[in-house]
């Protein structure tokens, strides 16, 4: 069992720093490229949402915790932004016409699509999003 935690400023560089940190963790533990990519993808989508919608581009903090064992890699992301439950958010299905389709909404579909388990908790003033990828 391995565990790591980092805290980041929720600014425009948060996604790059979060992905770099997770890549190093995955490389160190020799996780496959496929697993590393889907975890980076989910993290990119979740952290972008926190910066853009949770804090509305105002100063804030977020933390990321990774738990890894032979069965799964779990990512726990916490922030103090506006309450937001991505598991309940309505994601527009891209089954309409190109002209009418808005350009947002893909991120949550991707998180739910590539991870095996996605859960949300509101703990006091904290949003806690837990993403699990079975190995």
């Amino acid at each position: 069992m391995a565990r790591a935690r980092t805290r980041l400023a929720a600014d425009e560089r948060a996604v790059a720093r979060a992905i770099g940190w997770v890549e190093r963790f995955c490389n160190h533990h020799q996780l496959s490229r496929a697993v590393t990519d889907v975890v980076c993808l989910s993290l990119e989508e979740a952290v972008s949402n926190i910066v853009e919608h949770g804090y509305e581009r105002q100063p804030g903090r977020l933390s990321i915790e990774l738990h890894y064992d032979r069965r799964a890699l779990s990512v726990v992301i916490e922030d103090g932004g506006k309450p937001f439950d991505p598991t309940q958010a309505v994601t527009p299905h891209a089954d309409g016409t190109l002209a009418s389709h808005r350009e947002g909404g893909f991120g949550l579909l991707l998180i739910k699509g590539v991870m095996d388990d996605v859960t949300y908790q509101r703990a006091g003033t904290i949003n806690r999003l837990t993403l699990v990828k079975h190995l």
Partner: protein
Amino acid sequence: MKIETRSVYDVLVVDMSGRLDSMSSGDAGDRIVEIARGEHKRVLLNLEKLDYVSSAGLRVILRGAKLLQGNRGELKICNANGLVRNVLETSGFNSLIKVYDTEKEAFSAFVA
């Protein structure tokens, strides 16, 4: 992220390589808009060497496709592999923009 173009008859093939994510989507978006507003009405994105795409990247492609459609053109995609193919399918993006396994199949579809 690298974007290169080549003309094949009246189709502009856009070879994208590397990672199309939040960090690269600004510059890539400018280039795709420039291409979509250019002289070619038929644009084919060849994603064979694209390793990674996130929702920020999908928005770039969608913007280009909409611009082309508004200008009576069309954008198609081919040769997506691995994670990129997974993302196109998971997001339902492949129901908005036609995705082909090979360049040859995409060219035939433009001609049809």
